[in-house]
């Protein structure tokens, strides 16, 4: 048996980077935020990078990520960027308030929020009113692997949204995260926080896009606190550069009667790992995790979800759909924990994938741990090819073979896409499906 590599040099690289980061911080080094960073870097030093011997990383070999000495963006000065890059990446079809982060730092914003909403940059808040987010930042999810530890150690900025109780945001918020460089292999470490007060609601679009010629690693952490009867929808669109990496952790904490809906649309990136976790700790709350992932070339797209039902009368729904072309690979691991007290839990999970090429592959695994006896849990996985009869049916109407395939692809994706509540975004996602998979586009009349 070969040993788990220690990556001693790489770890030293990051710890040296941390020293430069601290030097740069001069003054900011005694804040509580920095204490969190210090804890994270020391944790980072103690643990190994994830390895396929770890059950959670069984199908995902991250050694390509470890070939690079990524330079944390927080050590470098601000990245200069052309406005056209932002314009191209921005989803302008959706009317919204917006924020642009470049390599994890706030670059610009367009806002118009009612009173009772704090939205913007974590680093600004840390400068002006660190107590505002202390409770949540300090309770941020533990650094359970090297990547979340790196994120915590090198984070200095990120998107923050705090909504007071009873405020319903009417328009969506778009947060564009542009990552990349022409000169450095960068590590971006955005740390995002959404805190929704009682009976508040908001829709947020995270739009992750890459630029530049250098390979980068986007290691992102987002924490969502959904208080009683709040309603939060987060659309997470990931279109990183084809040669770059995206490793993300999302942790939601929900209390009574709250609704949290998360969409992952995963397109670009060489290795993408998304951990999406929700903890239901108030009765009558519901989590909805929807996902559409599209692989081509050598892409590897890994989704791990974890839903923790700790109280009775909660509901969780998960539907993930993958379309895998060329040599791409998908991984889906859906864990559902129903704790002893969580009676009357309703948990539904499904992962379906179509393989467009015989070399494409998916590994899928449900993981159910149920300690309550009065629960409804269903899970299913289906992997296959596009249906021959449907293909024939469409072509038998005179429709060319490539368009027929596209129609089938759209048909396969539709139950996830139809859940999108922003019409303009629906069309954009449909468009991106065909663009990413290099197929003729089918647009509905």
């Amino acid at each position, binding site marked *: 048996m070969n040993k788990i590599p220690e990556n001693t040099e790489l770890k030293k690289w990051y710890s040296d980077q941390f020293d430069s980061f601290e030097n740069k911080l001069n003054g900011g080094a005694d804040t509580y935020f920095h204490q969190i960073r210090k804890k994270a870097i020391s944790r980072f030093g103690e643990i190994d990078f994830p390895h396929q011997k770890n059950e959670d990383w069984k199908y995902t070999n991250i050694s390509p990520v470890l070939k690079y000495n990524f330079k944390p963006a927080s050590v470098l000065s601000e990245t200069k960027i052309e406005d056209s890059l932002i314009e191209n990446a921005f989803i302008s079809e959706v009317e919204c308030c917006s924020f642009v982060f470049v390599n994890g730092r706030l670059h610009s914003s367009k806002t118009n929020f009612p009173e009772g909403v704090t939205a913007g940059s974590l680093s600004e808040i840390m400068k002006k009113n660190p107590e505002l987010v202390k409770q949540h930042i300090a309770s941020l999810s533990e650094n359970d692997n090297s990547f979340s530890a790196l994120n915590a150690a090198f984070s200095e900025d990120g998107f923050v949204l705090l909504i007071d109780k009873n405020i319903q945001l009417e328009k969506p918020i778009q947060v564009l995260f542009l990552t990349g460089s022409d000169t450095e292999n960068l590590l971006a470490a955005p740390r995002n926080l959404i805190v929704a007060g009682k009976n508040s609601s908001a829709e947020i679009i995270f739009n992750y896009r890459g630029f530049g010629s250098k390979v980068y690693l986007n290691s992102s952490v987002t924490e969502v606190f959904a208080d009683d009867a709040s309603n939060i929808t987060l659309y997470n669109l990931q279109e990183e550069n084809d040669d770059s990496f995206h490793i993300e952790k999302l942790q939601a904490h929900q209390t009574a009667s709250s609704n949290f809906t998360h969409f992952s649309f995963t397109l670009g990136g060489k290795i993408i790992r998304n951990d999406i976790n929700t903890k239901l700790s108030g009765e009558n709350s519901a989590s909805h995790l929807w996902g559409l992932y599209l692989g081509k070339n050598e892409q590897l797209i890994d989704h791990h979800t974890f839903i923790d039902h700790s109280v009775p009368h909660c509901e969780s729904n998960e539907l993930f759909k993958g379309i895998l072309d060329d040599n791409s690979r998908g991984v889906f691991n859906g864990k559902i924990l129903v704790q002893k007290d969580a009676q009357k839990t309703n948990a539904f999970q499904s992962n379906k994938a179509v393989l467009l090429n015989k070399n494409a592959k998916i590994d899928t695994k449900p993981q159910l741990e149920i300690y309550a006896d009065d629960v409804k849990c269903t899970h299913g996985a289906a992997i296959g090819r596009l249906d021959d009869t449907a293909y024939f049916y*469409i072509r*038998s109407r005179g429709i060319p073979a490539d368009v027929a395939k596209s129609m089938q692809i759209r*048909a396969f994706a539709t139950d996830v896409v*139809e859940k999108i509540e922003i019409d303009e975004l629906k069309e954009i996602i449909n468009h991106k499906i065909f663009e990413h998979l290099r197929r003729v586009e089918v647009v*509905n009349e």
Partner: protein
Amino acid sequence: MITIKNLHANVAGNGILRGIDLEVKKGEVHAIMGPNGSGKSTLANVLAGHEAYEVTGGEVLLEGKDLLDMAPEDRAREGVFLAFQYPVEIPGISNATFLKTALNEIRKCRGEEEISAKEFLQLVRKEMDKLGMDEKMLSRSVNAGFSGGEKKRNEILQLAVLNPKLALLDETDSGLDIDALKIVSEGVNNFKNKDNAVILVTHYQRLLNYIVPDFVHVLYKGRIIKSGGKELALELEEKGYDWLIKEDEAVGV
């Protein structure tokens, strides 16, 4: 219109069609009957070009052109249309999109211009009206969640809009209530003219009261074992297939 000579076809290595000969002329309606599993749908699918069926012998000419070499979409553009026994659901693609895409492909092949949105709507509305279909069906996904009868009507709507030369109707009558059967039959009769042809597969004489065939053929174990006029269907209704099968087996193959 279509000439089928000694057609043999396999599915998953099994010989399902074992020497079919059939000649259908312009303006004619042919009914194909026969017990379950005799190969009726297979014949229809082979004619429309389903790739799961392997043609192992014989020839099919549509107005003199060799059909068997053509992809399904090319056959459609040449004027073949198959109304499916089990129409396929395509969620996420609206009926309007589907039909318009198909129509424009076929028009392109005929050297005609793309149809304008307005003309298309006029055409489809008119046909839907005749078939007693709610206009809302246009914005719904193709066959998704349609009832059995609605799916069959939708097939006939496609037939009416695409206006092929040869219509293959595979059990279009099954699953229809009595009123729907009338409406759908009227749809087929409206389509029918002296320049096109219809091959319809059915189990029931009832349909043939509405769509009167010029010929009736009985398919059994992949061969036509009996052909006759419309009175053959009545005879079958009365006597079943046994007597024919016995006759066929007595002749010996």
